[in-house]
């Protein structure tokens, strides 16, 4: 079977991800949580931008909605901030559902606008949601935000208590370890679903709409309906990512979800290769881990200056690196890291890996809509 090496590699990576918490310290565990949370968001965004060809700058807004709904649902009511006191799993489902619902409410806009026009409309959404977060302080805690309750599942708490002590192979599993496994399960589930969705009937319809709306309509695909559905699915993913980010941070404030976050999600999927689920995961790893690593190890890096000194501090350096990475990928590395990997391993159009729509051998014509990675539907357009 031609996929055997791929499956073995996947299995090895999975085993590594399962074993890692046993050897990592708190800094790395926390880093892993952030990486996995942003992976979910990036994968959702690549479905919208890469597969369906709709630019969105509103991902942070939907993540914010997911995060705050989750926190509201799982917290007990307090004098200053409201809470529903629901079980955490219900909170997670609600976070995804409400984010998707808001996406649905906004989807008439998404269904009517193409590519960059949608990008502009969603830009407004980020500012609007931020305004709501600051003003609806009975639910959100306003500017100062509110704290996040630990995740519990049937009496088992993903924190340092309840049960107070569990250990595997002599390593005590504390809150961060427990959250790691929770995040791992949810992230894998979300990515697996996205990969399948991409090669499903719906996913191919999205790609067809991206390549040519006219051709898609001629083939009986409801263009507005599919653009709207891509938007709803992507919003739901952002909602889940927001809820996970809330758990990883332990405290929420409106400043967690700025326009920069939306741009960062875009950076991840562009570096990884638009439309590729694996690429989005690698992009999330790069963009999320880089600033944290540079901050942690800034003492060991000779060129790194202290923050605010006007030199190259970790945050500045990582932003300069992202900026350069985006430009380099868009100019030199067609298809991002995923495209480069495919060329390197010789996985051309013929191998037909199950979760990776294939690239045609001919160059892409420049006239079509946004979205880099072509797909099987490409064959139908010309």
């Amino acid at each position, binding site marked *: 079977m031609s996929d055997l090496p791929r499956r073995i590699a996947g299995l090895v990576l999975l085993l590594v991800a399962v074993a890692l918490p046993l050897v990592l310290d708190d800094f790395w565990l926390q880093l892993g949580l952030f990486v996995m949370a942003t992976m979910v968001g990036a994968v959702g965004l690549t479905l919208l931008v890469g597969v369906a060809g709709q630019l969105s700058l509103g991902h942070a807004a939907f993540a914010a909605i997911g995060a705050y709904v989750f926190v509201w649902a799982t917290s007990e009511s307090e004098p200053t901030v409201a809470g529903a006191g629901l079980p955490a799993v219900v909170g997670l489902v609600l976070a995804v559902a409400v984010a998707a619902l808001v996406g649905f409410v906004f989807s008439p806009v998404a269904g009517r606008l193409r590519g960059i*026009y949608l990008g*502009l409309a969603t830009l407004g959404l980020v*500012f609007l949601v931020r*305004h709501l977060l600051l003003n609806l302080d009975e639910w959100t805690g306003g500017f100062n935000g509110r704290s996040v309750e630990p995740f519990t599942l049937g009496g088992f708490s993903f924190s340092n208590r309840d049960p107070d002590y569990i250990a595997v192979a002599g390593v005590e599993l504390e809150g961060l370890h427990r959250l790691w496994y929770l995040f791992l399960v949810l992230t894998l589930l979300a990515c697996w679903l996205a990969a399948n969705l991409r090669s499903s009937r719906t996913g191919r319809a999205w790609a067809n709409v991206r390549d040519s709306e006219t051709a898609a309509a001629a083939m009986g695909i409801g263009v507005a309906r599919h653009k709207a559905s891509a938007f709803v699915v992507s919003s739901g993913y952002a909602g889940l990512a927001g809820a996970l980010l809330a758990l990883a941070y332990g405290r929420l404030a409106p400043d967690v979800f700025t326009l920069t976050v939306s741009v960062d999600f875009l950076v991840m999927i562009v570096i990884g290769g638009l439309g590729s689920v694996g690429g989005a995961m690698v992009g999330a790893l790069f963009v999320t881990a880089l600033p944290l690593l540079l901050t942690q190890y800034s003492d060991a890096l000779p060129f790194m200056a202290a923050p605010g000194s006007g030199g190259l501090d970790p945050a500045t350096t990582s932003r300069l690196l992202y900026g350069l990475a*985006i430009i380099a990928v*868009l100019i030199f590395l067609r298809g991002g890291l995923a495209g480069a990997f495919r060329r390197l391993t010789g996985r051309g159009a013929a191998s037909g890996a199950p979760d990776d729509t294939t690239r045609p051998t001919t160059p892409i014509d420049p006239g079509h809509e946004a979205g880099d990675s072509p797909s099987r539907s490409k064959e139908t357009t010309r």
Partner: protein
Amino acid sequence: MSYFLTQVLNGLSFGLVLSLIAAGFAIVFTSTGVLNFAHGSVVLLGAYLVAVTQPTIGFWPAVLVGILGAAVVGVLINALLVRNLADPNPGTAAILMLGVDILLLTELTRRIGNRVLPLGAPWGADVVSIGGIALPAGRVLAAGVAVVVFAGLWFLFARTRLGIGMRAAAADGPTASLMGIRLSRTGATGWALAGVLAALAGVFLTSFPSPGVAPPVALSAFLAIPAWVLGGFDSVPGAVLGGLVIGLVTALTVGYESDLHFLGSGFGEVVPYVVMIIVLLVRPQGLLGSKEAVRV
């Protein structure tokens, strides 16, 4: 009543500054089809160049340096990056510009640091009184300059070979190219013009009542995006109109915030985006934009 008039005049003069930026978006979009997310950083760059050169060479030569610098950077972005995209289409170009924006803004923020650079404008904090209504002199000058600039733009696009060539290139690139119009030249002119407008807007955005040149200026330039969208993506007169509307709506919302408390505090900052979303829903081509012919 005079309070109302003050708000209106303030809004309109600020709106004209937004129009300068919005016109830059529209010109770049029509001449090269790029949604220039780095435009805000170019506004900041123009103002930054003025602020750092004015202590040595004086204010007016510094303004010239700022304008030239912003125009050159615009032309370079187009020539070195946009024209070399591996997969040129509006989506990837927009994302490319986000990358350029990150680079420019991060570097400018690093250079400026926590300081607020004084612009050194000779009009300082002067206030002009028009019929009993006090307005900052910088705003009045901004309005005058904007009117002159827009008259110049109208002349360029309506009366000169270059401007008519740019319009032809925007309407149908390949055909214009066959008729002997050099698309590389019309594109470069568009980016240079946008840079000039950005630097001018930067000067007025950072002089009184604003404290000086600081990184958030790039973000306030984002307010011009709703103005651009409102006017229609490919229309310079639309951008002017859009800027005026957004400036007016913002000034009135801020001015009467106490009466609009049910909308939450700070609603003035988001009202442009609310207007933009409504416009995109009701009339996606904007007030004066041309409708997309494709209909499925």
